[in-house]
């Protein structure tokens, strides 16, 4: 039968493995645990299972990138709406996982962990699953440690890490605590807003440029599963050291990156006009108008879209003259449409409004746009033109 399998399925030649007896297995387990203990790890047990927990503590003076953790500590004391985490500091965890593959039931989370401030230090804690069988132990200890009321800071955790935890939790849900209802700040989404238009990729390692951290000899994330499969076969902790290091850096980067974002949003750091504009737009979208005005105000130069958005903001705040100036600077079809509205309804100058409308039409004709959308906009503008012509004649 196996020969048939090999022939039909084109096997890769491998040595057949003999499965160890149970006493061998026990001895192997003891050796495996000893190797971890020698590395300063804790072995945590649960029912028949066990996992590895690695703690590292950093004084606040330690640095990750060009600032110390003390700076982050301060940032966290300065809650600011879009980045606010309204719980005591020790309930905020900077969290990341390593998995055996893409989303799906069979993908195991073999390493998860977080950084958090406690007792005047930064605690970096990793939970490692020495064998896929011991997931109950993993979730039992992890969930007990973080407690019921917790805020996660992650990178792409909203669509990857957390759903995957939910998936795997199902298998052990009868034996371990329930998952907390998490408050979640996903820094990927924050970075995409803040640094919009500045990067071709928003991978975490690219963001490290901002915090001044550079990895040396980093193990690429996609190799992590291979190392884990190796570990499962050979049970040697050294195999995992690269992955553990990589994961640790991911978590620490989250800490510094949070600080960086917070500083930018709270004006505690110099920023380019582009970033100011991005923040201004973001805050306007969130309806935080007063803060948005401030950020726009600090930008020296804005893009066409930026001027337009600032104009819309002033319009909303009923500061029409300021709005008008912004729309003029925007020099876009959208700006002219708004100017036309302003001239017609606020300034009551139909001839001026007509002029703006025509200019909007002109610009629209040369603008890259979905055909259907352009049709619709042109139809609206034609309608406006006609109405204005009538008003002018009167």
């Amino acid at each position: 039968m196996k020969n048939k399998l090999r022939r039909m399925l084109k096997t890769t030649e491998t040595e057949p493995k003999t499965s160890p007896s149970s006493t061998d297995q026990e001895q192997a387990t003891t050796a495996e645990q000893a190797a971890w203990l020698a590395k300063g790890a804790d072995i945590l047990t649960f029912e028949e299972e066990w996992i590895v927990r690695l703690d590292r503590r950093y004084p606040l003076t330690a640095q990750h990138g060009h600032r110390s953790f003390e700076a982050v500590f301060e940032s966290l004391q300065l809650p600011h709406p879009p980045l606010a985490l309204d719980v005591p500091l020790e309930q905020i965890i900077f969290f990341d996982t390593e998995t055996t593959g893409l989303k799906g039931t069979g993908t195991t989370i073999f390493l998860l962990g977080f950084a958090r401030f406690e007792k005047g230090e930064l605690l970096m804690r990793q939970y490692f699953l020495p064998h896929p069988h011991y997931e109950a132990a993993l979730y039992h200890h992890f969930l007990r440690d973080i407690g019921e009321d917790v805020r996660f800071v992650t990178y792409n955790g909203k669509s990857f890490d957390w759903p995957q935890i939910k998936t795997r939790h199902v298998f052990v849900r009868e034996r371990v605590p329930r998952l907390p209802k998490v408050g979640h700040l996903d820094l990927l989404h924050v970075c995409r807003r803040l640094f919009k238009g500045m990067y071709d990729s928003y991978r975490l390692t690219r963001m490290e440029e901002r915090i001044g951290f550079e990895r040396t000899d980093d193990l690429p994330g996609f190799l992590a599963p291979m190392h884990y499969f190796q570990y499962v076969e050979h049970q040697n902790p050294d195999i995992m050291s690269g992955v553990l290091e990589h994961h640790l850096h991911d978590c620490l980067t989250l800490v510094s990156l949070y600080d960086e974002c917070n500083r930018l949003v709270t004006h505690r750091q110099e920023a380019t006009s582009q970033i100011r504009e991005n923040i201004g737009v973001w805050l306007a979208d969130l309806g935080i108008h007063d803060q948005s005005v401030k950020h726009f105000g600090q930008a020296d130069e804005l893009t066409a879209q930026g001027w337009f958005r600032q104009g819309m903001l002033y319009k909303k705040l009923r500061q029409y003259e300021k709005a008008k100036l912004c729309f003029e600077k925007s020099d876009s079809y959208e700006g002219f449409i708004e100017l036309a509205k302003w001239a017609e309804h606020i300034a009551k100058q139909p001839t001026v409004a007509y002029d703006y409308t025509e200019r909007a039409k002109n610009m629209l004709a040369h603008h890259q746009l979905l055909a259907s959308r352009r049709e619709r906009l042109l139809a609206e503008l034609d309608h406006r033109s006609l109405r204005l012509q009538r008003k002018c004649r009167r």
Partner: protein
Amino acid sequence: MFLRSCLFFLYNGTEEGSGAMEARQSLVTYLEELKADRSFMERVTYMKTMEATVGKYAPFPKEMPERLRQALEKRGITSLYRHQELAFRTVQGGASTVIVTPTASGKTYCFNLPILSHLLAHPNARALYLYPTKALAQDQNSELLELIDEMEAPIRCFTYDGDTSPTIRTKVRKAGNIVITNPDMLHSGILPHHTKWIELFENLSHIVIDELHTYRGVFGSHVANVIRRLRRICRYYGSDPIFIMTSATIANPQELAERLTEKKVQLIDDNGAPTGRKHFIVYQPPIVNAQLGIRRSATLETKQLASRFIKKKFQTIVFARSRVRVEVLLTYLRSLIRHELGPKSIEGYRGGYLPTERRDIERRLRKGEITGIVSTNALELGVDIGQLQVCIMNGYPGTIASLWQQAGRAGRRQDDALIILVASSGMLDQYVAERPELFLNQSPEAARLDPDNLIIAVDHIKCAAFELPFRQGETFGTLETEDILEYLVEERVLHQRGERYYWMNDAFPAHGISLRSSDQENVIIVDQTEVPNRVIGEMDTFSAMTLLHDEAIYLHGADQYQVEALDFEEKKAFVRAVDVDYYTDANFSVELSVLDEDECYTNGVFSVARGDVSVRGMATMFKKIKFGTHENIGSGPIHLPEREIHTTGVWFSLPETSTSSTELEQVLEGVANSLRRVAPLYLMCDASDVFVVPQVKATHTQKPTIYLYDRYPGGVGLAASIYKQRTIMLRAARDSIETCPCLDGCPACIGMIGVSDEKERTIRMLAEMETEL
């Protein structure tokens, strides 16, 4: 699908308006006219009228909830057909069931009524419906929604497939009482994410598998494994759903249902629905070459017949056997009738058209805007296109089961219907046309599948291991897993620890496995005629080797395209519209060797065996064939890579004879070709699913040998079936050559034009084999 309107009609006699009356009248009258037409009747070799039958009814079962009863009554339904009532009681009793009744007998109520009853009483319960295609799922969804609406019940029903928008997916998962999907989605979108579907799996009470007969061969073998995975996950969440299946008429519905689900299944096959009068005609094109036994082209005859009916505005469906035929007929018919009815009144329908095109055609058929439709067997399935008046089959559809499915497309409730089978010169056609009792009286073919096909089963065991770790000693359905699991451990796909096997790979196994064919990827057909280019269709890679090679003429929507380049690596074919008077036909050559012998019978001289074979296939060249005259007007080479498959086969080895090797070769070829052509009669497969290779001196046996093998890697049970039925197949092959009207052998019987007494010798050889083996 048609039941609702059908019952509606029965109890609302008014629905049959004067229009329908007129149509019926005229079809009957027109039939009389035809009977008086000598040139027509000369070619009719068989005619039979099947009288209308009356319905058998039963009152609503007492267990049926009042709300459901009222909803049905609102539609004018006051009782059930007997088979519906029987299905209701069987399902209520907790037994899995398969219902086999013809088209338009109200099959959907057989499962909808017991399930809706259950859901009304158990608001948390869930049901899963499986349809072979998305289109059928959509149809069923709208039908269910109407009924649920009328009950004003809080039952939520959704389709879940690739088209479902991400925004409602969560809602479907958490709250859908009835989820309608297809096996492919179940395989790659639901089972691998089962933890998101806890509510469904914990409360799953019923699973519906409609169009059961489509789950045969490769596809069926895959789906049987998907169902093993489904039941495994149900067990994990503590549910054990009842299966309700419906099927077109096949010989072994109960066996098929039990193989597919690996559960005991009860059969309900006593149709209680009334049927209209049907006239069945076998039509033989005249012989144009007596020596070669060649008849006039069936396609030409079909064209003439179809245009006759379409001009009279009888809604007519024409079934053709290949995509190419569909397009050829469509071109012919459109050009003939364009001026009378306009080009939009005739449409083509086949796989490869985009879904939106197909939905539009279906809708227009239902509304009666289309008078003529030319289709492949794609319209055999329960796509709702309403009932038509005339059905013309261009050639025997290949199986008795699909003949009846196709014939079922004609027949309005209490209206006469006409079904015409136009026989082609092909041997199988002639064989069947000479013996209409074959399909009129005999049971249709049995549907085969092989869930234990190693390649398929191993693929699904991988998926299953990804979904839940295997335990040592756990069976996968009825399949022992020990060896396979160990093999996967050696391959570093699974990791064994203690009693369990864990998924230890970074791949997502379901993504690499397609249920529909051995290839996971289809070739996309890109039309470069206009800028921007657009995708006009797709095709599986195996077919693409012979239909989309460089320079091939590809027909789509009655338009001709020439393939400018086939990028086989990237799976893209670039085509450009052309206007030429020929089509292309590709040759496929194979080399074969035996890997392993499973079973053998020999009398010392003759022997037959079956086992595993390796086949290396390659498309080598193509011919250009002129429309109309079918003459060969050119050829060209095909440069495509060779493909190797391992599959199962049967081989007959014969004694070495003193005759010359050329003569021997001819006889072997004759035997091989005739066997291949009768194979579909016994195997419920397409002629292209079985391949033959004759060898004068085979490496394996050192004797003259004829190989027959299963086209699908690993085989899906065809070889075993041939081995078992070899005597009857040899007899049929001989019989078919004997009754062929040609003199010395022709392409229809022995596969080529016979030389001297070749026909005679082939018959003798088959007779010998029959007695010896």
